[in-house]
């Protein structure tokens, strides 16, 4: 396992008192990735009429799970991924279970390959993520085809995968900053 990049200056011999406020603060910071997925999912299910809203729901969820499972699994445990996936299933209209299943697969790959992912560079990690996003989108497409009993166009799935891969660098920049600041339980 890879040691998480914590903030050493806060691990001094004299720890602050674990008051209720401090505990709540730490809990909220630790739950920040899950809250991010849930809030984005609910917001993107509103009728704003923006192009690609539904695809963005998938993209944001997969990107968030991949980043936090690879970098700080404590903030994104498997049960939280499952809960976020359920919320996503309720507030989306794709084939039931597909996104939930793929979020768990993404979590499994990222958390088990943490060591390897920390050794390779960002671009290589991004490529692996791209392959996962593409496979997940095609899995969704296959389920839709199976349910409709017809061969539908794979273009919407490709668009979803492209959107997911495209937003990942910006999101990971946000998460790198968040991991040090607002989503860091050690700073509570």
């Amino acid at each position, binding site marked *: 396992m890879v040691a998480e990049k914590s903030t050493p200056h806060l691990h001094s011999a004299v720890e602050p008192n674990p008051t209720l406020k401090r505990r709540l603060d730490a809990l909220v910071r630790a739950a920040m990735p899950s809250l991010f997925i849930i809030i984005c999912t609910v917001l993107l299910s509103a009728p704003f009429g923006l192009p690609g809203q539904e695809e963005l729901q998938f993209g944001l969820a997969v990107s968030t799970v991949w980043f936090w499972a690879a970098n700080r699994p404590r903030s994104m445990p498997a049960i939280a991924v499952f809960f976020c996936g359920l919320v996503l299933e309720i507030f989306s*209209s*794709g084939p*039931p*279970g597909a996104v939930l299943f793929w979020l*768990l697969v993404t979590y499994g790959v990222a958390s088990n390959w943490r060591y390897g992912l920390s050794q390779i560079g960002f671009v290589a990690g991004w490529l692996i993520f791209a392959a996962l996003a593409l496979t997940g989108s095609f899995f969704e497409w296959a389920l839709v085809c199976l349910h409709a009993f017809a061969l*539908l166009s794979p273009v919407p799935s490709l668009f979803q995968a492209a959107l997911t891969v495209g937003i990942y660098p910006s999101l990971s920049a946000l998460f790198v900053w968040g991991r040090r600041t607002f989503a860091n339980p050690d700073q509570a």
Partner: protein
Amino acid sequence: MFSIHARQVLSRAILPVLILLAVGLVLLGQVRRPVVESVRLVAADMLAPAYHALVVPQEHVIAWMTDLRGATDLARENARLRDENRGLRHWYDVAVALAAENGRLKNSLHWIPEAVPQYVTGRVTRDDGGPYSRAVLLDVGSGHQVRAGDVALDAAGLLGRVTEIGPHTVRVLLISDDASRIPVTLAVSHADAIMAGDDTVNPRLLFYPQDHHPVEGERVETRGQNEMPGGLPVGTVHYLAPGRPVVLPDADLGRLDIVRVFDYGDEGATAPDAPGRVRVKKLPDIAVPSGLHLPELLGSGAGTVPALGSGQE
């Protein structure tokens, strides 16, 4: 509470268990999709007021932008509106004359007036579409009488049909959805066709007669069949490529706001049972004395029935 070893085992086992649950949900979605859809509809019902509150600022911004755009170009906008008004006055006169003539003709033909459909107006609370579906959720309030199969229209034309019903919310499958099939009539060629959605904004025209190809620009209306009333405006024919006619919908499918759902009841044209295809009712078990002729019992035909039931001699 648990030992370290037990905790490690639990932490390793939880992901496979959750994946198995997810697979179960996938299978449930394939086998019993309506169960999942009803859960989604209940969630949308609960969040309908929140969705409305979320889009209010966006609506205000769009209204301000429209006003601002109009204010910066008042002179040209006025000229355009004057021209449009002139054209509309002409069409108003034509419409009044045609309505009067239509009334006279209906009177002379003793035309039976059609029943006025009941309708309910709702606001789109959520776009329920995705990469492979085109649907919207409408907030129609509590105590509505909307039924599955009712017809949804916006100010310009046909949008789709109601597929699922919730306490406050109904789901409308748009005409552009891949699962949508609407029987239509072409106004000029008078040919019937099926308008099939393909997840693009322009549904395709299928199954039109080969000697009556759709004409570019002709009007497309619904054909009265089953619960679908006839004569509802749908759109116009357009050829994306030779031999590939599509419908340009009158309704603005990209930006839906206020939608009316019409209940035409059972007014749709349903053909009576064809002769020869009427289901034969099973004769009840009756006591027939041996040797008695069937015509004496049924009143027509010929033939002798030895015994139809457990009669006593």
